[in-house]
């Protein structure tokens, strides 16, 4: 591992000041960054430990929930308000990694984790535009069974690996940021970039900008929600496909719906088109199938991952059918 300087930030202004140094990186639980440093994929000159900052979960009077970026994944999944009001988020978090890793990993670090594309990790043996801009991509014509069918480019087809983020984008979560130029917030759906010609930039964060919190708006339909993950083994594996869904049905008609997909996109994938198609439709399996097909019509399969297109559609239909009591 390349030598680095370690600094623990005692508050957000200090973290932002330390994070503004050249080649500084913020350190959460380290479950991804430490591994990448060991593989020399990441070689920061300074690590700024921000795990002691923003560790509160605040239930606010307007019904929103403000989650500090330093909250551990386990603590968020186990929080009573999350389990009652946003069960899909609890389920998504405990679908990810292992219990040990969830005890270490922070909310901010989960959002900013890098792809698990094997070529991204293979410093000596593979080309990767995300790791080394302009080098080329060995995944597009290589072993790409795990890769994205949505949002890819001719530069990169790596998936975003998070389960938690799939639930968060379904919930209209926003992310609070602090940089040396001040604070701002944005919808989480706007934080992660599509790779386009610059896959090395996962997000729209400015250099040194720190995630301080996630805000979940009050969303009554989220009390009736779920998360389903399909993977190669039944636990402790990344998603082949996953579905986060919340739905409100009255008199057999879809009043409102939130739908997001994991394992298929280059970023946590909010299924805007399927949602728009479903609103006002009868809550039937036929309508779910039509909406799922519409969302996936834009999919671009590679040599080995075409199965995801059919698999995710079946998963969408199954989750919506389960939530609405339609037998599948």
């Amino acid at each position, binding site marked *: 591992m390349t030598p680095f300087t*370690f600094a623990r930030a005692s508050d957000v202004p200090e973290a932002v000041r330390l994070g503004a140094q050249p080649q500084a990186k913020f350190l959460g639980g380290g*479950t991804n960054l430490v*591994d990448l440093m060991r593989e020399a994929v990441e070689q920061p000159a300074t*690590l700024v430990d921000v795990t002691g900052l923003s560790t509160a979960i605040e239930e606010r009077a307007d019904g929103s929930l403000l989650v500090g970026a330093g909250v551990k994944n386990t603590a968020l999944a186990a929080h009573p308000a999350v*389990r009652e009001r946003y069960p899909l988020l609890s389920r998504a978090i405990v679908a990810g990694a*292992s219990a040990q*890793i969830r*005890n270490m990993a922070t909310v901010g670090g989960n959002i900013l984790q890098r792809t698990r594309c094997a070529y991204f990790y293979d410093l000596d043996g593979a080309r990767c535009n995300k790791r080394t801009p302009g080098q080329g991509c060995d995944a597009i014509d290589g072993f790409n069974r795990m890769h994205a069918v949505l949002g890819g480019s001719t530069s990169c087809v790596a998936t975003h690996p998070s389960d938690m983020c799939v639930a968060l984008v379904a919930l209209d979560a926003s992310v609070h940021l602090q940089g040396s130029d001040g604070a701002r917030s944005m919808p989480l759906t706007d934080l992660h970039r599509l790779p386009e010609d610059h896959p090395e930039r996962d997000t729209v964060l400015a250099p040194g900008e720190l995630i301080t919190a996630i805000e979940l708006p009050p969303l009554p339909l989220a009390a009736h929600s779920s998360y389903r*993950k399909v993977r190669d083994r039944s636990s402790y594996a990344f998603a082949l496909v996953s579905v986060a869904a919340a739905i409100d049905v009255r008199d057999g008609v879809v009043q409102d719906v939130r739908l997001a997909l994991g394992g298929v996109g280059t970023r946590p994938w909010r299924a805007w088109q399927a949602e728009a198609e479903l609103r006002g439709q009868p809550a039937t399996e036929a309508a779910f199938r039509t909406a799922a097909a519409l969302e996936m019509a834009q999919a671009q399969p590679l040599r080995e991952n075409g199965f995801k297109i059919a698999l995710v559609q079946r998963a969408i239909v199954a989750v919506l059918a389960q939530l609405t009591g339609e037998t599948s």
Partner: protein
Amino acid sequence: MPATISINGAARALPDDPRVSLLDFLRDHLHLSGAKKGCNQGACGACTVLADGERILSCMALAVQYEGRAITSIEGVATDGALHPLQQAFIDHDGFQCGYCTPGQICSAIGMAAELRRGVPSYVTGDVAQDVIALSHDELRERMSGNLCRCGAYNGIVAAITEEYGEVAP
């Protein structure tokens, strides 16, 4: 005063080099070789220890990040020379073959029991909002999925953990 970390109840000076993982600190600096280096990348669970009672992977942890925290490794779970009841249960049920994963399995299961008491849900928990979660066979397997056993001693491991925590009170 140098920065310290508590290891099995004793204050220890942290390493000067921030690259030292908590696992290497335990094994190479303190010669506590119970926690094992299986994969060194967070995939196998053999390095599991407890940090303030919560199970973590010591291979992915930088020792300096745990300044002031209380770490318990397998060497610290016995009391006054008496085995932890779960250690005895592993012996009684043959919960190992080669033994390499065993310290991690035991530390992990101790942490798992604390999570159950706190009502932490798992992916197989039917209703994540429920307060009381019983340690069913499926719950145990899911909650212990971060600890691999290459000998395949899972039946004995499950039996040992079930004996100790199968009736965990909320």
